[in-house]
Each structure stands twice: as C-alpha cells, then as structure tokens.
C-alpha cells in the first residue's frame, strides 16, 4: 500500500509540475484534493491496510497531503506572479499619445493680476474700495487740486459726456475723495481698483480703456519713508525679492511730493533691453504724499494727519511679467491668448 502512496505522490508532483496555467493548477487541485480526489480516496482506503500498518500509512498519507498542498500553493503563487508580471509588461500604452483634453475655465489675465495685487496689499492691511466709472468733473479733477484750466489737466485726455460736468474717470483717484469723505476723520488704508478711460487712440501701447489700482493711506503719522517701504514690499512680492527699487521726482497735482517708482529689470530676461529702453529701469507706478488740499477736500486736517497715495496699471504689470507687447490683447479676448494664463 505504501508503494501506492509513493506512486501517488510521484504522479501528483509530476502532474503539478506539468500544469502550465492557473486553470490546469486548479484542475490538478480538484483531481487530488477534491471530495472525490485521489488523496481522499487514498485516505479512505486506509481500511484496506493491515491494522499494524495503518498508523504508518496514515502518517505517510498526511505527510503527502501537506507536501502536495504546500507545493500546490507555491506553484499557484508562482503562476499568479508570472501572470501579473506578464500582464504588466504586455501592451504598454504609447505614453506619448495626447491625454484627453480637459476644458477648465480661467480667469481673465487682468482679473488674475488684480487678485495678486489685492492679496499683496491685503497682507499689508489695505482693503479694496471701489467707486464709479462715470464721474463728475469735481471728483475727477477739482477736488484733486485741479481747478478748471489747470495745466496738469493736460496729463489726462478726457472723455466728456453730453451731460455737462460729467466724464469718464481718467484715473481711479476720484475714489480717494469718495473713500476719504466716507471715512474721515478715521484712518484710511485702501486700494482702489477700477476701469479708467482716456481719449487716446488704441495702439499696441495705449488703450482708451484700462485698469488702474491706486492705494491710499491716511493717518496721524504716515511718512514718505512708509510709502517707500510699502511700495518696496509690493515690488518685491510682485517682481521678486531681489528687485531694486528706484524713486525719482515726478509731478501729480494731488500729491506733494510726487514720485515715480522704477524697478530694475532682470538682465537675464531677453526682453530687458527693449522693455527698459536700455536704462535697466522700468517705471511701475506713480506715488506721493497726499497734497494738503486733497486731504482738506477729503475732510481731513493736513496739519494733523498725513498720507500717501500710489497708482499703478495692472495690465502694464502683467505685460512686464509675461513679455506681452500689445495691450490690445487684453480686451480683444482671443481665447488663444486668454487660455495661456
């Protein structure tokens, strides 16, 4: 009988080794370990074994069962591993084929730039204050220290409307008066974004309609050095920590002193020379200490409080950052342009 068992084991091992895939392995398993499997039958035959040999027979049968079980599990695991390896290596994708196109929406470049500006100034405690596009001459000019026929009015080519004394704001500065009159005598720290309009031919460099962001800070002890610190912080955040800021004298009727702020432009930008006209410097904003007359018009006592104001063109900033050489692209809204940002 032991020879039967030995034969069984030999045969089973040979057949297991010959089983080429998982189905064959499972069939083998069924053949030997199923309810009517050979091992079950062999164990059932223990009754035919002489009683003296039964113990040995039983032990041997169990040993074979365990050995075959182990071999089977190993073979099955190896076969599954082989299959997995095979499936992972067959039919690899052409990863250079394009992905499925997605259609994300995007903010307009101008909005993105405005948000960047809002966020930088929010960190400095400046809140956003907005005011109207269609303005009175009074707010756009007179209260900003530009009475009628003031020479400085030449600095802004103005769209006038058919209602006398009503115009399209040429800058966001009227918002200074609005916010001052709303908040006086409390301190002010705001930025004033908005669309401005100028009687200018639309060219690659000038628009009849453009965005501006002004800043205004008023308080009991605001100094010009604070203005320098604020715009330097802004320039570093917007253009990079390593940027140098240069301040030069300028003129605006509503600030005194008035300055223009330049940043140096990275020399490794291939457009640096064109942008800076070889000077290495780029104008990014006008600024100054709020003119005493403007403070007074806003409801403040210029002997008790002081303030600074600055103004910049977010479109210009975006143009600098992305080497855009045509301002008309902004309102043209060509998706091939807008989708790049």
């Amino acid at each position, binding site marked *: 009988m032991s020879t039967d068992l030995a034969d069984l084991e030999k045969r089973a091992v040979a057949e297991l080794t010959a089983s080429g895939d998982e189905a064959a392995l499972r069939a083998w398993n069924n053949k030997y370990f199923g309810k009517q499997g050979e091992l079950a039958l062999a164990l059932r035959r223990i009754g035919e074994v002489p009683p003296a040999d039964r113990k040995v027979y039983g032990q041997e049968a169990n040993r074979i069962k365990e050995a075959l079980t182990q071999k089977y599990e190993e073979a099955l695991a190896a076969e599954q591993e082989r299959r997995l390896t095979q499936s992972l290596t067959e039919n690899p994708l052409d990863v250079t084929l394009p992905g499925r196109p997605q259609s994300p929406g*995007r903010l307009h470049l101008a909005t993105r730039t405005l948000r960047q500006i809002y966020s930088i100034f929010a960190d400095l405690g400046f809140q956003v204050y*907005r005011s*109207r*596009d269609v303005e009175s001459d009074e707010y756009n000019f007179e209260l900003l220290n530009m009475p009628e026929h003031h020479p400085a009015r*030449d600095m802004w080519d103005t769209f006038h409307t*058919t209602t006398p004394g009503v115009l399209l704001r040429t800058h966001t500065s009227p918002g200074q008066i609005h916010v001052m009159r709303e908040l006086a005598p409390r301190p002010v720290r705001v930025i004033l974004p908005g669309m401005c309009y100028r009687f200018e031919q639309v060219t690659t460099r000038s628009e009849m309609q453009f965005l501006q962001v002004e800043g205004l800070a008023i308080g009991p002890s605001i100094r010009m050095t604070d203005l*320098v610190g604020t715009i330097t912080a802004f320039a570093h955040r917007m253009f990079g920590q390593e940027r140098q800021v240069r*301040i030069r004298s300028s003129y605006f009727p509503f600030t005194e002193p008035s300055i223009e702020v330049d940043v140096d432009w990275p020399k490794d930008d291939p457009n640096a020379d064109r942008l800076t006209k070889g000077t290495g410097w780029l104008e990014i904003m006008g600024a100054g200490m709020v003119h005493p007359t403007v403070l007074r018009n806003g409801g403040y006592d210029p002997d008790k409080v002081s303030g600074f104001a600055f103004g910049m063109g977010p479109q210009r900033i975006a143009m600098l950052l992305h080497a855009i050489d045509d301002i008309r692209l902004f309102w*043209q809204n060509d*998706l091939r342009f807008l989708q790049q940002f």
Partner: protein
Amino acid sequence: MKVPLSWLREYVDVTIPIAELARRLTLAGLELSGFRAYGLPVPDGMRVAADEAGPTWAKDKVVTARVLKVEKHPNADKLKLVHAEYGAAQPKVVVTGATNLDVGDAGQKVILGLAGTEYWDGHATPKKLSVLKPTQLRGVPSDAMVMSEFELGLSDEHEGIILLPPDAPVGVPLADLWGDYVLDLDILPNMARCLSLLGVSREVAALTGAKVKLPPTDYPTAGDPMTGKVTVAIADPKLSSRYAALLIRNVKIGPSPSWMQRRLAAAGMRPISNVVDITNYVMLEWGQPLHAFDYDLLAKRAGGKPPAITVRPAKAAEILVTLDGVERKLTPETLVIADTAGPVALAGVMGGRDTEVSDATTNILLEAANFDLVSIRRTMRALDLPSEASLRFSKGIHPELVAGAAGRAARLLAEHAGGSVAAGMADTYPGKPNPQVIDLRLAEIKRILGIDVPAAEVTRILTALEFKVEPADPDALRVTTPPNRLDIQAGAADLIEEVARIYGYDRLPATLLADPLPPQTGNTDLEREERVRDRLVDLGLQEVITYSLTTPDREAPLTGNDERGTMNDESIRPSDSSFIAHRSSFPYVTLVNPISTERTSMRHTVLAGVLEVVAFNLKHADTVKVFEVGSVYLQREGQKLPDEPRRLALALTGKRSQPSWQDGTTPAANVDFYDLKGVVESLVGDLHLPNVTYRRATISQLHPGRSADLVVGDKPVGSFGELHPKVAKSFDLAGRAVLVGEFDLDAILAAIPSRYAYTPVPRFPAALRDVAVVVPEEVTAERLLAEIRTAGAGLLRDVRLFDLYRGPSIPPGTKSLAFALTYQAEDRTLTDKEVDKAHKKIEDRLVHVLKGTIRGKE
C-alpha cells in the same frame, strides 16, 4: 525740451559724465526721454535711439576747408571739381554735384570729408550709414567729399553742401566746432520753468553744486529814446500782468549767425532769419516768448501817431489774419494785442500778418509780455494753435522774466542784426506778484518725509535753487520764493518736495507703516463677486472683459430699442417685465468726444460684448464658453450720474466636451439649453441662493421655447436660454445654437446668505427606488418634482431625473419622466416596508394630483 549740451555749458559748468548728469536730472524730475549725438561718439552709459543715430565725425577726417577754385568736370555737365585747402600740404580736388557751388566760385568755407568719413548715404533707401571710399567719378579720381547737412546727420537738408560763414577757421575738425550732445528732457507741468536753458541750468547747478552764469542783458542804445514812440496799456491785469516793448531801429534782416542756427536746430527749431531766430533763441534761453512787430507798419496803422498798444479781450466779431494767413473771427474769450485800428496779434499765441516782420522791415517793436495761462489755454484750444510760445505761456511764466529776456534780445539784435536800440522800455507791470514767504519748520520736513534733514542742508538746497533762506526761529527757516518760480503754491509742502528731490529720494530709507491698522472691514461685495467668478471658472467657463464703451446700434438687437430692426418683427414677442428689457427705457451715457464711431456710449448690456467675443473666437474655434462680470450704465431721470449696476453675462456654444482622438468617429454632442441650465443651477447652488425657481422666460431676445427666467424668492434676477435666431444672426452667429444668459449680479450677490448651515452627512445606508410617470405634456418637470418632494417629505432625500421619453409606447400628447429616488433616514437603516410605504405615497400622489400613470403599474 531739447537741451544741447554745448549751449547748457554756457550757463553752468558740467563736470560730471553725461550719463551721471542724465541720471541726476531724471531722479530730480527732469526725465531723460531721448538723447542724440551730433558727430560725437555716444558716451558711456548713454544710448541713442535707432532712428536718431547718426555718423560720428572723426577729427582727422571731417574738417573745415576753404574753396580755392571750382572747375567744370571734364566729362559731366552737372558735376564740378572743387579745389579745397584744409590745412594739409596739398589741397584736395573733390568731385561734387552740389547746386550751391558754381564754376568760378572761390573763398567759400565748406566741410570736407576725407576717405574713411562716416556719412548718411542718401542714395540708399532707407538711408544708411556708409564710409567714404576713394573712387572715380566720371573718370576723375575722388577720395573726399564736400559734405551736406544730411550727409553729416545735421538735418534732412541735402540740396546743397554746407557753406560756413566767411570767418570760419580752416582745417579745424568739425567735431570741435559743431559736435554736440542733445538731452531731451520731459518737462512736467510743475517744472514749466525748465522749458528754458536757464531753467535747466538752475537745476543742474543745484544738483552738482555749480553756479549759474546769467548771459549779459545790457545793450548799447542809440537814437531817440523810446519815450513818445509807443504807448502800452493793459485792460485787465488778471489777463496780462506785464507788457513791455522795446524799439530797435535800422535792423538789417538776414541770416542769423551759424552758431545760433546750429543751436536752434539742435533744440528742434528751424532757423529763419536773424530777427525771428533771436526771439526764438531768447525764448529757449529764458523761457520767455517774444514777438517782433514791424514798427513802421504799426505807425502807419496809427496814422502817423505813436502806436498805442493795448492788451485786451477781443471784441465780438473782430477779425485778425494771423501769420499763417488764416482769417480768424475772434470772441471776447480771446486775448489780443491791439492798436487803435484793431487786433494785431493773438496774445501769446500767434502774431498778425499785417504787422509781420519781413525782409523789408527796418524798425521793429519787440514785445516781451506776460499773459494769463488760462486765457492762453482757452485760445490755444479754441483755435487749435499750439506753438512753442503758447506752450510756454499756457503753463505759466514768471513776469519778472520779461525785462531780462527783452534786454537779452535787444543786445543780440544789436550784435547780430545791426539794430540800434532806443533807450528806455515801455513797460507796464500792473500784476507784479509778491514773492511768497514761507516758514518751513524742520519738524514738518520730518513729519512728511520721515527723515531728519539738517537745517544747513535744507538751506544749501533751497539757496542753490535761488530761494532766499533766513533763520526764522531755532526750528524753522523763513524761505522766500525766487522771481522765476510760480509753482510754489502749497506752502511748506512744495518746499519739502524741493528739498526731497535735490537731497535725493534714494536716500530715503524704507520703513513699515507704524500707524495703527485701521478697522478691517473687508469688502463683502467684492468677495462675493469673486466667488461668482471662481464658480464659473470651476464650471469650465473662460472669463472675458470687454469694452464698456459701445454704440446703441450694436446693442439694439439685445436691448430692444432698435427702431428699424429685429425687435419690431411680429414673430418675436414683445419684451415684458424682465429686467433686461428695462434698459431700453434709459438714455445712454454718451460721449461728446468719442475717439471712434465704434465706442460712443456706455453699455446697457454686458451680453452684447460677450457675443462679439463669441463671434470673434468662432473664427478659429468651434467651442466657446465665456462669461463676463461688469457694469452697465443707466442714466436715470433727474440724476446727474448714471446708476452703474453690475451684470453677469454668459454664453456657451459648440461642443459639450473637447474632441479627443479616442472619440473615434463619434463627435461630442453640442451644448444645449440644459448645459446652460446646469451651469446656472450649479452657480446658484454653490452660492446657496435660497428659494430659487425657474420659469419660462418671456423676453423677446431669447428663443421662446428654450429660455427661462431665474427667480430668487419672487424676483426675477435674469434670463437665460438659447439666443433667438434673429438676434444670433445680428451678432454673426447665425445657424448655431448659442446659449446665453444675463443676470442682475447685484440682486444675486445680495441674495447670498451671509452664513449657511451644513447638511449632516448620512450615517445610515440609502435605499433606491425608481419611478417612471407618464403625464400630459403641459406638466412641467418642476411641478413633478414639487409633487414628489411634497409626497416624499420625511424619508425622501434626493430626486434625480434620469430619463425623459416621448414616443409610440405612450399616448400622444404625453411624456414619460423617470426619476431615481433616494430614501434615507438620519437615525436608522430603513426597512423595505418603510421604503415601500413612502414610495407608494409618492406614486399615489402623482396619479391622483397630476393624473399621471405610473409606468409598469398601468
């Protein structure tokens, strides 16, 4: 203001490099906007714009010369041979075609360019810089040229060669004679005093520590004195604060000296004649415009009596023919110089033709005067006559400059026009301004600038700018304005600016705001607006920003106020209560001075611009999904300024998804009403708008069967749907479905709750059941949903429509809608029995209330 450096150096020493001078001037408020070199190499750190570049005159190659003789060219009629000596052992023989040298000429002073000379080649188009090479011209060897202004980069004049004055030296490098640099400075309104060489010199002096040397203004006098020769009067000192006149006799009109011509040309003015050039020269030097009248013509008009000059407003309908030959009808707005016979000049703007200086003039009356800038600005603008003179008057000139400029001109007229100046000046000066005296407290400088500037430094700076500075008390300086400044109007603030810009803004440290932070109120309105933008971007829409300026015509198809077109078409229903239609009842905010016929009025709708963007992009794309957030401008009765409510406009057209190579031959479907509605639903859902309903829209701009109003509470806040085909056509969008919407953004933002509570996430499993119901066509989905929700109250958590069917298996005039219902309880797992009961209740309600048939249970 073009500043030739050689001219500037006459008044102030410039010892620093040019680039450093340009930098200091720029930082002090005189920004360098251009630079050019005449004949000299471009200095370090400077740059010449490509269109202003020119040849460099090598000192050993471009030299002055004297013509020994001019001969006929042996082989060419139009060419000549010029023998010129230039200091070398041998004279040069040069072939020229110059028209201003003739055979037989001798003694002329010319400019000789030897081999290697850089020059503009006018035969090339465009002109190009060439180097002179020895050649043969019609058989005659030629290795030099007699040069023209064009070839040397002096002007565009290339008709003849340059003829120097007879006393010009020979054999001198031209670079030493005429080589120059010109700084072009931007002059801001408060720096109008720098529209003059002396003004710029004062700045240079203050910035470098040099001293200004004023040019001489004394002059020899001859003949009868001025007394009794002319009277001058000013009608209104507000319009003219000073009027002075000098009489110069026996003037010989001719060309001005070549150095003066060179300077004028370099400064951008064309030389004309000695008298005109001298008035211009003095204007550029002092910033004070002058005018020369022919004295004899004035005397003739006065009928032999001494001319009586009056500065007065023109009388209505007075006429003056100006120098340019234009007959001008005057109004009392215009300030004129008049004599007893009428106006002889537009004050400060342009002279009159009848009293103009001509070649025949011998006696001139030289005017130096001051006029009110506002009056000049009005005249300039009314007559569209900007000139170098009116430009200066219109920005304000100190009246003290009159005497110096007049004296300077008299001296130059005596020197260079042979004039005899009559002693005495007719000078009426009713508007003499008092110098301003300002107490400048040092503490105020610190308060505004944030730094301590020592009193000695403040004194040095202001004194250098010609202010008078005395100590007022230990903490303040008493500062008196100089008689050349009109821009000091804001007291100490103006002086602080002077101190700061000369002290140097680069010396201001950067500090952080030390003032307490004002209360942080935020800007809820903007934050909500930005949320709308973000949501729409999340939904796959591209933001656009279009012009607020448009024309009523372009908007007409959308606003319904086009009298000719679509809106009167009977096939389109008239507008009703929707807010979009309301805009037609407001007038437009319209420009008086539009720059383009395309942009004349402020928009009433944002959608029109958005549709133009759609049409524009469809030229290169087949799918466009865009939105814009922006204001419209509604002029209300009785209001000076318009309302500026905000709108949200959106438009979708094209494919639902982008085509991919994996689609095979099945193209993606086109967007339809429900894509748009999905966007709207998602937006209002994310904004947590309460009580949102939709109803069929009744606005004529949209497809009547495929449009809806968005209603929040009981207020319609916008309409959306498929653009009416006729409207689409008017926007060049014919033949495609364009889904659009325009919404009252202010109303939507106002409806956003300031806070909302979350809905607990279910902890127990949901049970799903479907119901398909057949109902008459007129039963809306909204009605069905409402009934399902009412009947399901309690356990019904969610309803989703998953199928809509019309067809042969159900009766005509009906439709079948299938809903997936989700039942769920917050506190337990529902039993089948509970779910069955709830579901049955819904089915019963659909049957009884809506007369529906539950499919599968007919």
